[in-house]
């Protein structure tokens, strides 16, 4: 039997942006009932500064274990490890209770804190004490978002013979990965990995693909959600359209292509890209001349299939039932024009990394030819495959990431994709000089550091120092950077600059968060129920996260998380039960459960 350790509790009064404030006094009173607690520190001194003083008190009260409670308590863990060491106690006996993490809307903070404290004191992870509470589950699953994460999760679930509704808001599944040319670090062709999966989705008997659709509302309870899905009018019959493209040839309206990041033009009736799934045309109502003015209809006249195009089609709402929901809504790239010092939108040859992905792509606007932007007859800046190639390029890392003025977090993928782009540029224009300006090189994954070394050996100039500004001089771009490792200022002229933009939560994140009742962390990403041990579930029962909507990550990690979310779903279908939403479980039950579990542990 394990002996109970005498415990000291430290309340960390860290400032946080939570709307409710904690009544620490009441919590201290509440903890009096726990016999092993011999000391409670409830001081507003934060962070604590004098380990000697704490060591003294630890000795005096014979404390063997310390519980740090508050907002992100892990930050001050090293301090208490030191204090315990100084007091000659085992430094590993520190437990943390992050009181503010994951609190459902409307929950009284103090009650929530008590449940968390009891779980922590009992040594039971908070989400484990929830596990056995289940609602009966329906076997259908709703997946929101058809990027690589949504596709992966859909296939995993469907392959185990359970029905999946895959809702995608654009005209094709594939997401951002479909736009990439190659993947790091293996330089595999992204489309070669992705498109077979996309096709599999479209042909899978257990997957109902709803492209060009959005989740409108969700009601019911975990295990039995009723979902209203808005099917936006495609105005082209998916069943009869053969994808011949005659309509688009004749369509008089051109607008910038979303898929090509605006580097090329598409018609008002269009297929997002040649391998789109479904491989059918659709009409963009905002640019269609008929929808806007009531006069046109050229596409209807030229379409070889009868009654295939219905310009007057209306949006529909369909209703489905789902036991579990996987959110895989992805990210949006950082808006580079927000950082005025780099002149994105002002200088034509300052482009974002995603635009560069399209330029290098053989299916891109220039057929894979990297060219400088040039002006057409009307004076618009376009990418013309016959324009001159840039002879020198610079890639600037950390655009909008690791920056207190924009996003504080590291976007995780930019270092690696920049290295990859540097390599691809070298492949396409071998004589080009490529410069990379970075703050820290984060090549953290399997085979990534080796990839970095390889790119360095290929002759890319990799320079430590963040470029501070870009000016245009003699039609070239002048970059000012401190070359930190060589202790000098660099003023480098290049033809083209690629801004390695970071990842931001998608524009629908707010809407989805309130619709599904899932919380978001400080930086806007959806919050998982436990940052270490449960990264795909949320505290709302039956609602799971996959891919970058939970935080920036690369393709392998997105795929892994999608599979994990799918396995949670399959598990709940097999067990015929979905965890209840935390908000609906009485906190008393959680505390009871934690104590029961911990009693079992001790015996």
């Amino acid at each position, binding site marked *: 039997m394990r002996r109970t350790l005498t415990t000291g509790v430290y309340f960390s009064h860290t400032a946080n942006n939570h709307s409710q404030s904690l009544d620490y006094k009441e919590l201290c009173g509440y903890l009096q009932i726990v016999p092993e607690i011999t000391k409670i520190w409830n001081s507003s001194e934060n962070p604590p500064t004098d380990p000697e003083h704490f060591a003294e008190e630890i000795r005096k009260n014979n404390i063997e274990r310390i519980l740090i409670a508050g907002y992100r308590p892990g930050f001050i863990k090293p301090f208490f490890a030191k204090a315990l060491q100084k007091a000659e106690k085992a430094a590993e006996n520190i437990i943390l209770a992050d009181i503010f993490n994951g609190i459902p809307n409307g929950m009284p903070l103090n009650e929530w804190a008590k449940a968390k404290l009891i779980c922590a004191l009992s040594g039971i992870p908070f989400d484990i004490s929830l596990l056995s509470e289940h609602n009966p589950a329906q076997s259908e699953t709703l997946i929101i978002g058809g990027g690589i994460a949504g596709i992966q999760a859909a296939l995993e679930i469907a392959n185990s013979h359970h029905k999946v509704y895959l809702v995608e808001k654009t005209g094709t599944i594939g997401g951002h990965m479909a736009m990439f040319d190659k993947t790091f670090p293996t330089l595999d062709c992204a489309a070669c990995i992705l498109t077979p999966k996309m096709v599999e989705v479209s042909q899978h008997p257990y997957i109902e693909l709803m492209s060009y659709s959005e989740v409108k509302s969700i009601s019911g309870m975990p295990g039995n959600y009723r979902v209203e899905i808005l099917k936006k009018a495609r105005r082209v019959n998916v069943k009869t359209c053969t994808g011949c493209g005659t309509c688009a040839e004749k369509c008089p309206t051109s607008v910038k292509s979303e898929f090509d990041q605006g580097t090329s033009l598409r018609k008002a009736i269009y297929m997002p890209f040649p391998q789109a799934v479904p491989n059918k045309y659709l009409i963009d109502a905002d640019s269609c001349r008929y929808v806007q003015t009531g006069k046109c209809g050229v596409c209807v006249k030229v379409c070889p299939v009868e009654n295939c195009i219905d310009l007057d089609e209306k949006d529909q709402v369909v209703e489905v039932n789902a036991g579990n929901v996987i959110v895989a809504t992805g990210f949006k790239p950082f808006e580079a024009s927000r950082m005025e*010092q780099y002149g994105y939108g002002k200088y034509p040859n300052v482009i974002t990394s995603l635009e560069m992905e399209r330029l290098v792509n053989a299916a891109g606007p220039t057929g894979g030819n990297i060219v400088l932007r040039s002006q057409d007859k009307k004076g618009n800046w376009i990418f013309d495959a016959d324009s001159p190639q840039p002879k020198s390029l610079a890639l600037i890392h*950390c655009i909008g990431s*690791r*920056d*207190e*003025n924009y996003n504080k977090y590291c976007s995780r993928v930019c270092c690696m994709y920049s290295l990859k782009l540097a390599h691809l540029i070298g492949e396409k224009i071998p004589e080009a000089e490529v410069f990379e300006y970075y*703050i*820290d090189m984060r090549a953290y994954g399997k085979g990534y550091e080796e990839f970095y070394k390889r790119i360095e050996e290929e002759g890319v100039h990799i320079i*430590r*120092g*963040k*470029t*501070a*500004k870009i000016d245009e001089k003699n039609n070239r771009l002048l970059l*000012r*950077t*401190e*070359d*930190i490792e060589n*202790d*000098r*200022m660099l003023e480098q002229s290049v033809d083209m600059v690629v801004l390695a933009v970071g990842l931001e939560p998608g524009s629908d994140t707010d809407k989805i968060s309130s619709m599904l009742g899932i919380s978001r962390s400080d930086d806007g990403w959806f919050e998982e129920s436990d940052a270490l041990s449960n990264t795909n579930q949320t505290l709302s029962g039956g609602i799971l996260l996959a891919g970058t909507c939970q935080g920036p990550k690369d393709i392998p990690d997105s795929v892994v998380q999608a599979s994990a979310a799918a396995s949670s779903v399959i598990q709940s279908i097999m067990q015929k039960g979905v965890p209840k939403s935390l908000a609906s479980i009485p906190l008393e039950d959680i505390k009871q459960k934690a104590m029961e579990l911990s009693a079992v542990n001790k015996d």
Partner: protein
Amino acid sequence: MNRIDPDFKEKLKPFGVGNWAECFHCGNCTATCPLTDESHLFPRKGIRWLQMGLKKKISRNLDPWMCYYCGDCSETCPRDANPGELMMTLRRYLISVYDWTGISRLFYKNKIWELGFIVIFALLIVSAFFIFLPPDPAIISNPGAFINAQGGVMINSLSTGLGNEQFLRIIETGDLIMAITVGLLLISNIFNMWYKVILSDPDTRVPLFTYVKEFWRLIIHFAVQPKLSKCDDKKYWLGHFLLMSGYTIMFILIVGLLPKFQVENIYPWYHWQRILGYYATFGILLFLVNVFIRRIRKNDIKLQFSHGSDWLFIILLFLTTVTGILIHILRLNGNPLATYYIYVAHLAILVPMIMVEVPFSKWSHLAYRPFAIYFSALKKATAEKAMKTSLATAI
């Protein structure tokens, strides 16, 4: 050799604020600065040295003087580490390093010392006036005797038992004593700076000829601050120039040309004595009001973190200017008694202000900045010459 002083960060605290521990060395500040060049890479390197505790290196470095604080680096710093404010803090620190008397360090570390010094000095001046140059009792009984033909107060005749020439000579002597004291202190501090920066550097042996050749820089940078005009805000340069030129003119008028400035007559408004006085007052006041508003509003990053010494400087200068204007108005209005009292108050603020600010505090930058640029040019010229010689011998 550079010894590491682990407590240096703590020691620097009284001189300013900053989150320099936050810096992750991306180099954005150095690259965004319009004034960095090959020989002066700042502010990032300074932050590095500070984080490492290289006290000696910092105290012999001229980089902080090359910064004119436009604030671009602090605005775009991805870590909110406030590099611009660090440069400001290091300038305060360097002022205390150059000052061999240690008084400057005392003033920066403890406001009480500085304020106490000013109050005691002011009281000394006031009591000196009332003991040795008290107001003539006749001012009250017969104020008309102190009014000149133009209807203005005869400022040098207000003290009892002294002729106006005698009074002026006493004030002039006092002025000279003040100017010489301040001058000697400042010059000795510059000598100390020269010793630290040039003489104690074994790699820099500056030939006499170079001193002469580069001397023009000292004059130019003292007179018109071309580097400040390279900082993005041209209006700020103009404001600073008005302040500086106004202040210099005033200083020359009251120290060198007092018999021509503080005269019994009231000249017509277009007389050079009045025009110069008006220009100086306007220049100083315009800048002061502007800086007051911006320091209070804190909407300009470079004026967000006001150190006690910054406030003291503008408050003293403001009070001096206001009392100066009051003397002028009271004289024109023919009010001899009020003129006397305000005159005493004016000197009681002016003298301690110059005694504190010029050798020991913020104003010493009027000398340190141009000298830093001069010394930097000397070092650069010497290094270039050494490079040429070594190349020649190599060939």
